[in-house]
């Protein structure tokens, strides 16, 4: 260790996390490159050395996929980075992704003993460090499995589906993943922007899963190309549905179909999946005006707002019906957005949109809200204040108020029970649906949640598929 760093470490209070460097706000709002740069080796060693390696580690209970966190951190302190990533991958097949987009502050890090008096160990940053280091080396193809003769179809190549595929392939199953889009990754490629999750990272993790022997079939929309019944008849022993929550919600207020009003899904699909931030090199257009309003307070709203800023908007205002404290987005992302100059209008909800003769949006009327009694989400319910309507000038609006499951599989599969919102009803312990041999996990079974919780439910389903097929 260089003397300077050693000194830094000695001076460093054990209660303080090593910060991760990131692109400066003024610079990053002009590009789509990753904001957070990741730890250097020295930084990772210093941060790893803060871990107390508790004999009864609390952090692991906060991890939906039960990564042996103290073990991999200890391996980092011993400079055994290859062993460290192998330790992570025993439980988590997408570590470079999770190291970036998991809300660790709500999960593993929330339980870290150090967090009681100071900063929790930066588990996510350490996970990212070892995962990224591995990606700089040639892909190590895992030991070939002995195929057990059983076949499983996985519908959707997002976080849930890829986890099921990896876990079952490691156990010797022949797995075929059917993905409706032209590329694997699900929300990781169409939803989360390049500046938060570079697509080459997703591709590298998908390559790892393919190296496990998983067959990936893109452009295959199940429900239309094949039904689930047909897949089972064709010889699959089980089917896992991991089709996510892809159907955007709209506000349902007048004028919402004016040009210039996007669902966050459309906006992000154009920007991320179709790479319209590189238009005209990539041919899918996107139009961002000068004054952008983004409706919503979650991570998707922030991703949309920050993308709009990078595409040249003069002002981007987040309009949220509750207050800052109730925003479901990660705090780190809120801070990033604020640093970049995104403004927020809290306790406001659109009531109608105004347009010009060409049908383009020119204004948004919104009503002020106040917080009432807590609702079923536990957050105080926003209530409109009568007569408080105001019009703001906008030329672009992005509606990011949530998504529900895509209805195609549900409407083409007889006997598959769903809630009225189209969420597939499953046994929460096993992931099994109302149909034999049909399992579901991730957003399609839980409603919109996080990448890691989708992976957690995928893991559970893979385990019960294995149990049921070897019984």
């Amino acid at each position, binding site marked *: 260790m260089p003397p300077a760093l050693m000194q830094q470490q000695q001076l460093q209070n054990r209660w303080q996390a090593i910060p991760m460097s990131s692109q400066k706000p003024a610079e990053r709002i002009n590009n789509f490159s990753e904001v957070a740069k990741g730890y250097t080796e020295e930084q990772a060693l210093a941060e790893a050395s803060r871990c107390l390696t508790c004999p009864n580690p609390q952090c692991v209970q906060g991890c939906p996929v039960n990564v042996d966190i103290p073990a991999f951190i200890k391996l980092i302190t011993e400079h055994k980075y290859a062993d460290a990533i192998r330790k992570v991958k025993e439980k988590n097949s997408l570590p470079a992704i999770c190291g970036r987009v998991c809300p660790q502050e709500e999960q593993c890090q929330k339980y870290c003993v150090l967090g009681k008096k100071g900063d929790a160990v930066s588990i996510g940053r350490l996970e990212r460090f070892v995962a990224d280091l591995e990606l700089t080396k040639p*892909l190590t*193809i895992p030991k*070939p*499995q*002995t*195929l057990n003769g059983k076949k499983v179809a996985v519908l959707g190549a997002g976080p849930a589906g890829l986890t099921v595929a990896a876990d079952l*392939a490691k156990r010797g199953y022949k797995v075929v993943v059917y993905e*409706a*889009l*032209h*590329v*694997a990754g699900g929300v990781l490629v*169409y939803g989360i922007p390049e500046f938060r999750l570079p697509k080459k990272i997703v591709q590298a993790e998908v*390559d790892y899963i*393919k*190296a*496990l*022997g998983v*067959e*990936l*079939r*893109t*452009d*295959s*929309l199940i429900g*239309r*190309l*094949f039904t689930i019944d047909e897949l089972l008849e064709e010889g699959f022993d089980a089917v896992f549905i991991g089709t996510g929550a*892809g*159907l*955007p919600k*709209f506000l*349902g207020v007048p004028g*919402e*179909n*004016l*040009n210039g009003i*996007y*669902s966050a*899904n*459309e906006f992000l*699909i*154009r920007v991320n*999946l*179709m*790479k319209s931030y590189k*238009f*005209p*090199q*990539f*041919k*899918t*257009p996107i*139009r961002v005006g000068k004054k952008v309003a983004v409706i919503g307070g979650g991570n998707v709203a922030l991703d949309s707002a920050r993308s709009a800023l990078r595409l040249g908007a003069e002002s981007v205002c987040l309009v949220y019906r509750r207050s800052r404290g109730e925003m479901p987005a990660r705090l780190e992302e809120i801070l990033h957005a604020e640093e970049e100059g995104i403004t927020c209008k809290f306790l406001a909800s659109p009531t109608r949109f105004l347009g010009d003769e*060409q*049908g383009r949006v020119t204004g948004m009327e919104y009503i002020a809200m106040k917080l009432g009694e807590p609702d079923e989400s536990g957050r105080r319910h926003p209530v409109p204040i009568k007569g408080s309507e105001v019009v703001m000038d906008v030329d672009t609006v992005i509606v990011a108020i949530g998504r529900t499951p*895509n*209805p*195609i599989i549900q409407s083409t599969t007889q006997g598959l029970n769903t809630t009225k919102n189209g969420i597939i009803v499953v046994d929460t312990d096993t992931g099994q649906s109302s149909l034999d041999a049909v399992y579901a996990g991730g957003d399609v079974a839980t409603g919109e949640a996080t990448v890691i919780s989708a992976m957690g439910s995928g893991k559970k389903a893979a385990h019960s598929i294995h149990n049921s097929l070897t019984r």
Partner: protein
Amino acid sequence: MSKSKPATQLKAETKTNTHKIIAKQDLASNIKQIQVLAPEIAQKAKAGQFVILRVHEDSERIPLTLVTWDNDGTITLIFQEVGYSTIELGKLTVGDEILNIAGPLGKPSEIKNYGKVAVVCGGVGTAAAYPIAKALKEAGSTVISIIGARNQQLLLLEEEMAKVSDEFFISTDDGSKGHKGFVSDVLKTLIDKNYGFATVYAIGPPIMMKVASDVTRPYKIKTIVSLNPIMVDGMGMCGACRVAVANQTKFACVDGPEFDAHQVDFKELMQRLKGYVPEEKSIIQHLNPLGGKCTCHQH
């Protein structure tokens, strides 16, 4: 000990198929027909459905109606070169491959014996109407077709449509063939002659579908249109294709593409279709798809 079988080695993403173009034909100026290998889609396609395709890695995803599909594992698509992406598609020749084709997408048409059905279509809409007319005929309906175009040269699938129709009418804007005027005029005449249509299918440019639906509205004839708004994924994700039907927002890609014509807000549909006209113009200027230099910075 069982013999260990090695797992599949790392390989390129397995696409459903390689989508090779095996035949190509110019139907009219700017209107092309291609026959493409897509065995799984060919096996599953039904009248009224469409595909989304992507020509190259940097291309748009574009929706095209399935025109025919065959036991030989091919599908036929017809398209008009109206923007960058369709011009790019038109440049492919026999033997070339289309990078991605996803389908069949959308709800199939409700095919049954309706009694007497009018199939009214204009321009490239005839390509979308043909499989529906054919399926209606096979299901026992009496099919009266009215096909139209600006002029005789732009008429599509004349013979094919005639073959699946009990009666067949042509209309051209300039009168170069058949009735001079619009398909909706012919439809009105037939309705007034007491043809007694149980259902009318109207497929073509939005303005044509709007006028046809205005013709049938006072007669309360059930009228179905197949809409082709801007789409990105075509699978219910983006909502770019949203249309107001009976004042409810519907997605043409998963709730349609067919809707009750009398409930569709055509004005909004037409405005939404113009959403990217400036970008379409700019990309054609920048990257002249037919070759030649960018002309936009020559001041």
